[in-house]
């Protein structure tokens, strides 16, 4: 017996790009994050072939979850075809042998920036959100050590103060994205810069969500069937964006989150932010047999 028979054949890189110890550490932290929903877990953020701030946190979690039978979808602001989304997706399949898809229904692993797909996620799917700033208390407490104490004490009063100031100044809550939410009645998290429209999708969802910030080296999770309640005043209800009445000018679909596209005349038209849902709707309109999944919002309303 020689040492060569005992060792694995040489490979250019480990399976899934990250080395085994990095993945082991990430998995431990991910399990911890699931055990304490919404609580930020520090982890040793590794180098990946992408600049910090471009989704390295999400990428590391995705790389750790990959297996050859995975089907990955990468979303950038709702779109699958942006340079960033396309590059991350092809990188993921290259290092793991996983299949690529644009279709939410076909995906098992979805890495996303700024959006949650409009089609309902299932229990066998995992959503990974890229987070630029994981600390909801940062605007009120610049000292991170104190912020951690505030999390420990569930001292979140100051977050309502931000909302109070917004109502006093502007007459309504101005927080558009990263709307803070209480997870499982205990930890307040910032749900990454998803619009207010997407936040109710996390409440009691069937799928597992990971949120990971590579630059800030923190990850947290929303396990399946976990309460995610946006912070609100008891007499000022939570409101999503007024997009229910808007119609996509390309697919004709209405009742979903839209991108506004300014026009030359000064007006604007709207198109579905979830681009692949739009593509499927157009193909279906043109007579193809395409399955559209059940969506979280029905006729612009989130059924409770």
């Amino acid at each position, binding site marked *: 017996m020689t040492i060569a028979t005992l060792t694995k054949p040489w490979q250019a890189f480990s399976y899934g790009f990250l080395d085994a110890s990095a993945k082991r550490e990430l998995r431990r932290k991910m399990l911890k994050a699931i055990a304490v929903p919404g609580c930020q877990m520090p982890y040793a953020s590794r180098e990946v072939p992408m600049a910090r701030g471009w989704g390295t946190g999400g990428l590391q979690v995705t790389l750790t979850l990959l297996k050859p039978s995975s089907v990955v979808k990468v979303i950038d602001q709702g779109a699958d075809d942006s340079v960033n989304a396309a590059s991350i997706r092809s990188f993921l399949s290259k290092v793991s042998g996983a299949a690529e898809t644009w279709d939410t229904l076909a995906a098992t692993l979805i890495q996303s920036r700024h959006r949650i797909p409009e089609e309902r996620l299932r229990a066998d799917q995992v959503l990974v959100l890229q987070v630029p700033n994981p600390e909801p208390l940062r605007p009120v407490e610049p000292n991170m050590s104190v912020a951690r*104490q505030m999390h420990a*004490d569930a*001292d979140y*009063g*100051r977050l*309502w*103060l931000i909302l*109070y*100031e917004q*109502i*006093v*100044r502007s007459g309504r809550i101005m927080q558009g994205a990263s709307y803070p939410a209480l997870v499982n009645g205990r930890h307040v998290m910032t749900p990454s810069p998803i619009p207010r429209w997407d936040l109710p999708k996390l409440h009691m969802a069937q799928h597992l969500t990971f949120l990971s910030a590579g630059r800030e080296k923190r990850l947290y999770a929303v396990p399946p069937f976990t309460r995610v309640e946006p912070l609100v*005043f*008891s*007499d*000022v209800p939570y409101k999503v964006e007024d997009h229910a009445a808007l119609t996509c000018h390309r697919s004709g679909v209405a009742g979903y989150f839209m991108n506004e596209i300014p026009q030359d005349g000064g007006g604007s038209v709207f198109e579905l932010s979830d681009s692949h849902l739009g593509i499927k709707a157009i193909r279906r309109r043109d007579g193809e047999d395409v399955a559209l999944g059940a969506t979280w919002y029905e006729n612009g309303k989130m059924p409770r």
Partner: protein
Amino acid sequence: MTAALALRAPQLMTTPPLLTMTGVSRRYSDVVALDDVSAMVYPGEVLGIVGESGSGKSTLLRMMNLEDTPDAGDYRLALPGLPGNLFELDRFARRMLCATRIGIVYQNPHLGLLMKNSSSGNVAERLLIAGERSFAALRGRAREALNASEFPLERMDARPIELSGGMQQRVQLAKAIALEPALLLLDEPTTGLDVSVQALVLDTLKRLQRDRAITMVIVSHDLGVIRTMADRVMVMRRGRVVEQGLADQIFQDPQHDYTQQLVHAKL
């Protein structure tokens, strides 16, 4: 001698003291800030603490607000649910106690106020810590507290940084009284204000004291302020209490050398 003196209760008081501090000592490396200080404050009374700069009066007030722990000493408040030495409370209990039962007004408004928030927001913050989650109630109670501290309500949404010194002190005061605390601590509340504004702020404090019978501890190096406000006076020097007694008694018939100097210097 000082210890015995400090613990002697006023003769006509029949109720037990609200605040009892015994044997509080604190050193900051070589500097003795407080040396075996004891104090009592009775419900509804105003205790004035005078002394020169560095005499330990502000340190004592910080201890009363649980911002700092002493090397030795015992601190009790006769409030329901607070048995034992308050210096031994954990961080969470201490913070809740400070937020809900003790109000403080600092000399420097930057210490007590969030300058980027609105004035009403500053008052609302206290209520939020106490768990109020209704916007209308927050607004109403902030307005009420600001009104009680005689703050012009048309400016209630201005940021404190845009306000005058006297107005900033009124916002601090409103914040301090918003939760109707059992104890109100005032650390040089009028120092740095011009004399007419000083008089107005003192007027407000006096009215509050009369209307709500709040127990107050007021620290000042200005004997005029103490004379106007305090029922009882404690004179501190070099971290020790050198004399204490009823305000009239201290001002008319000072016993200790230092108090005599202090009173005569003023006159």
